[in-house]
């Protein structure tokens, strides 16, 4: 179990760094969603199921979707100005 958790933490750290470095915004948002998902799994292992539920529903699903919509909206605006 300890190895599994350590692996998750390592993936989470790599993901967090990647989402900061990466240039493509959409990929960064998706990676941030994955980081949230792993965080929720870790919350569950730390015996905080309430927080895990909130993190999975809000962090992984809703925030990612809202960011994707926001990126789509702002990009559309910029393209119209460029044309």
């Amino acid at each position: 179990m300890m190895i599994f958790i350590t692996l998750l933490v390592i993936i989470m750290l790599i993901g967090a760094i990647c989402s900061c470095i990466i240039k493509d915004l959409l990929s960064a948002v998706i990676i941030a969603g994955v980081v949230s998902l792993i965080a929720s799994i870790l919350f569950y292992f730390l015996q905080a199921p309430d927080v895990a539920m909130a993190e999975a529903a809000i962090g992984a699903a809703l925030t990612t979707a809202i960011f994707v919509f926001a990126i789509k909206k702002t990009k559309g605006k910029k393209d119209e100005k460029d044309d």
Partner: protein
Amino acid sequence: MRKTISFILLVILLIGIYYAIAQVHYGENKMEVSKHYINEGLKENGVTNIVTSVVLNYRGFDTLGEITILFIGAIGLGLVLFGFETKRKDIMPASLILATGCRFLFPLILLLGIYIFVHGHLTPGGGFQGGAVIASGFLLSYIGCSKKRISEKGINILESLGGTIFILIGLLGLLFSGYYLSNFLPKGTINTLISGGIIPLLYIVIGLKVGVELAGIIYKLME
């Protein structure tokens, strides 16, 4: 003149804050409060999920602040996006798999969300989590079956109704047992669905409000 008055008011305010802070005893055992919650929470509220009894009873006022913040956030988003009338020109119809899956999964996700917040006082979860699950169900329905929309009027009515009922329950507590959001209803048998006084009622209200609000945010962003 004005400066003097504001200076005097500031001094009075500072003295008031000083006396308020001076009443808090520092240096005592910090675990005392959490020990009380863990040992007495079940007895005082009749709720098996201690997190719920802290969130809705001991810290109920903070929860009111949280749902207010969410409400203001939703209003602010509506305000920012008000001028944006970008017409969705080419809406790609969802694929057959997505459309069918959405039609099949949407009621189940709604049911799961409602289950989470109705059982918030017995099992992990509660209003915020259930509301978020409901909102993610609406997200799926927006992506999958893009023709189905909940009306904006319904969103507004449910939002305001949720907030009003929360405050009214708090005021009833003030009326019946002396302080805001006190648990004035009978506690019932521990570990049954109808138990815990006002806590299940509050969580149902919060769940509906949060779910509808987050769904409204998604709705506004997708338009």
